[in-house]
């Protein structure tokens, strides 16, 4: 599903951020990448999203070579095959909850009724069916991140990229958000890369990798556990 080979990236002439990264992810796999600040986690995520281009190496997503794509092609790929969850939620304040969730469907020109149905079922899935017409400022942080998860998955992406999704949440909300995330990806069979500092969050992943100067190092066999609420 996702294969990174000999991936290197550096900014200007300074030391390389990423050097010769090799990594493969099977379809439906859920992996957490941890690492100290400054090791290039965000850069790695941007490369996987096609928002930055690698200096060398290849990124193959679902058979598409991302590294060779121009901005428009990468954007198109993101639109169809990827979903994003951010630390700061990034829910548009002037749109309702439902409108926020429906954004990817709009971008993918999904027919209106179909889109509405998908949105409603997605909202129901994240437990916010009754908040469809609320405005973001009326929601709590946990609820906001649920909206973001719904938006990330509503169009059935192949790959979900989550960047520290619990960073702005209290531990209780964080646990429930992570549980929801895992449930949803496993249900839809979406491949997921989670970048986080939180071992508690990482613990929900199938595998945990540590990004160091030497590359991605597997952290033994992680037994994914279900967090009881």
């Amino acid at each position: 599903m996702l294969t990174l080979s000999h991936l290197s990236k550096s900014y200007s002439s300074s030391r390389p951020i990423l050097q010769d990264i090799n990594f493969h992810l099977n379809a439906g796999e859920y992996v957490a990448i941890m690492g100290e600040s400054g090791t290039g986690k965000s850069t790695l995520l941007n490369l996987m999203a096609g928002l930055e281009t690698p200096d060398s190496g290849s990124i193959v997503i679902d058979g598409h070579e991302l590294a060779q794509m121009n901005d428009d092609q990468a954007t198109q790929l993101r639109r169809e095959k990827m979903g994003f969850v951010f630390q700061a939620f990034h829910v548009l304040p002037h749109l309702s909850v439902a409108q926020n969730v429906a954004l990817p469907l709009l971008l993918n020109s999904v027919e209106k009724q179909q889109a509405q149905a998908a949105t409603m079922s997605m909202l129901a899935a994240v437990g916010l069916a009754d908040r469809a017409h609320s405005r973001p400022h009326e929601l709590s942080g946990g609820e906001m991140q649920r909206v973001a998860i719904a938006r990330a998955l509503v169009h059935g992406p192949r790959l979900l990229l989550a960047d520290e999704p619990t960073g702005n949440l209290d531990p209780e909300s964080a646990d429930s958000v992570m549980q929801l995330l895992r449930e949803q990806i496993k249900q839809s069979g979406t491949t997921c890369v989670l970048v986080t500092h939180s071992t508690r969050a990482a613990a929900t992943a199938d595998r945990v990798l540590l990004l160091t100067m030497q590359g991605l190092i597997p952290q033994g066999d992680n037994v994914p556990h279900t967090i009881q609420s």
Partner: protein
Amino acid sequence: MQTTALAFTFLLGEFRAHGKRVAIGVIAIAIGVAMGYAVHLINYAASSEFSQAVRSLMGNADLTVRGTRIGFNEQAYPLLARLPEVAVASPVVEIDAHIPQQSEALKIIGIDYFRAQTVQPNMLGHLADENMNEGLDAFHPNALFLSPAALTWLKLKLGDTLAVQVGLEIRQLHIAGTVPAAGAGQRIGVMDIAAAQWRFDRLGLVQRIDLKLRPGVDIAAFQSKIDSILPTGVAAVTPADGERRAANLSRAYRVNLNVLALVALFTGAFLVFSTQVLSVVRRRSQLALLRVLGLTRASLIRWILAEGTLIGVLGSISGLLLGYAVAAAVLDYSGADLGGGYFSGVRPTVHFDIWATVIFFALGLGAALLGSLVPALETARAQPSRALKAGDEENALRRLRSPLPALVLIASAGALCFVGPVNELPIPGYIAIALLLIGSIALMPRLAYAVFSHFPTPTHSASYLAVTQLKGASGRASIGLSGILASFSLMAAMAIMVTSFRVSVDEWLGNMLPAELYMRAAPSGDTAYFSAQDQLIILSTPGIARAEFLRSTHISLDPLRPAITLIARPIDPANPAARLPFIGAVLPSQPLSSTQPITVWASEAAADLHGLVVGKQFMLPLGAHSQSVIVGGIWRDYARQHGALVINLADYRRLTGDERVTEAGMWLQAGTIPAQAVNNLRASLHNNTRLDIAEPGEVRRLSLKIFDRSFTVTYLLEAVAIIVGLFGIAASFGGQALARAREFGMLRHIGVTRRQIGLMLAIEGALLTTLGVLAGLLLGWVIALILIHVVNPQSFHWTMNTHMPWVLLSSVAATLIFAAAITAWLSGRSAMSVQAIRAVRDDW
């Protein structure tokens, strides 16, 4: 202490990071201040030179006795001189002499040197080198003394001769010396009074008698004492009255220009407001953090005001420098006459005026502070904890939205339109326009909400995003909207007013120029005329079927006001409307009898300024006599702002015995082409070049050219309003784009292309500007109505019909919408760099 340091860092950081937007604010204030300051300096220089001229002409006089432009009987001189209260009486003859090849007339003062020594010492001529004036002294009938400014203007030196036109004849005057004490900018000539009377055919008449009273005489009491012995139309005024009268000449014009300049400053203030609001909104969470960290509400307000102060100070200083340079350049290149034609005969230079400088500095600073105050107060009022949350920006703006104050402002604007002028200036009208503008701007968020919330949501993704943004964030949108509204409405108002005026003038010219050929004795001054003999020659010139003669002169109905023009021309008493564009009722023709008053027809300005209504009787001073007259009708006149009276030429001749005329309108015999008639006229009047002959088409073209020239400043201000409007759009979209960097970042993540974001912004800009332009058009139309029906009649005493310049308005509107779309699109580009993608990671 520490907070100050922190604030300083904070301020500097903001300026460094968003220097361009700060610069826009500075430029906007600078433009406003520069325009206002330059217009003021030019007008100030002109009018102070003008009143300086009046003052030095009146010299040490305690009182000036003056009457009509033709003058009054010189026998008043011994009468006044013998009064026991009078120390010295100095008689003066004033002539506006036409100099061939010069468009402006030369003012020539005829004085009695012996009397002027004590009363008008500045007017004394200084005889040049004796060798140059062999046998010539100050009393020589051809001896003329010129002020230094007049010598420079006419490119003459001592000993030269100067040709002046009297009637159709050219007379040579000898430059015998200078008038060294005349003001630096004054173009005048001085002659002996007897020589002036003789050389300019003014025997028996003087224009003025200046009086120096004995010490201890009560001037006011003496003034009223002599009023009873002076003939009608002749009155004694103090030098202060004289200056006021000179200032009155151009006051309305100057005030109008200053108001236009203030409009530019207002738009500048608005621009500062919109940049400051956006900058504050963008930094909302930063400011909230500072509040959390312990910055007090008051110091937060001070910080934001400090930013406004810096913008204001920078803008004001550069504006003052720019304005001074512009004023100096304008005075240097084109003279003080900004097109209004009020300041001929003086050549002033720019003078530094400390008070004006202080006031315009304060205005610029005040505008910037005012622009910062609203956002400062709002930010300080916000709850820091809430403001820290993303998405609260819209709340901040929503609070600006309460319709009641706006509606009160608009209602008071409406009421002010019905208040009369204050001190003869349309102050309430101007205030009404300001209130209407502020009220409408305050209503913009509500309008934006009302319009966009009912706007159908499109399905196309970029338009969907644009429309939902406008719907959801109408408060923020309304800032840009208000900028467009302010600039477009002002531009539209000026354009509608000027077009209405221009079309009305054009129509009026058609009405006023019924003949096929027009001839003037000279284009300037009051010394040229056609004698009775000349008139017979004109009538018998081959090709001329008939001719109507016109005598134009000036009379004073009120010594405190500028003289009005008396036009004597043939009027059919049965049908005066054939020659005059009447407004309202016209009296039926009066039976001709010696006991009945003679009918005169007053222009709108004469009616307004002198309280004349149809049917009113009053005494009209005509030369040495005065005559009972009745107002037969009010006609529209755009040419004479201080008023005009039309009297039948036959009546005028009977009453004054004055056979001379100044203009002739001629109808041609069938088959005669105008050029041929012109040649015949030149040939029969033995005077080939000096006659000013034109066809109505030419007169019309020339008049409209003069009209356009006098509105140059207005056109310039329209352009400035549009530029400021575009600046406003750029500032508001630039600010928004930066404030929305995180939104763009997220959208890019979820698969929105750069082009789509650009398109989204362009659609937002176009929609917003379209709404702004439509609202601006409506507001501009209302402001134009106020200008046309309140401000113009009150300042210039003439009315006009409304005409819409649709082509101009729609092309400017289209340009604005297009420019806004481009600007919005461009502003998005900077927000979509890599930095913008990082924005999703920034919490702030």
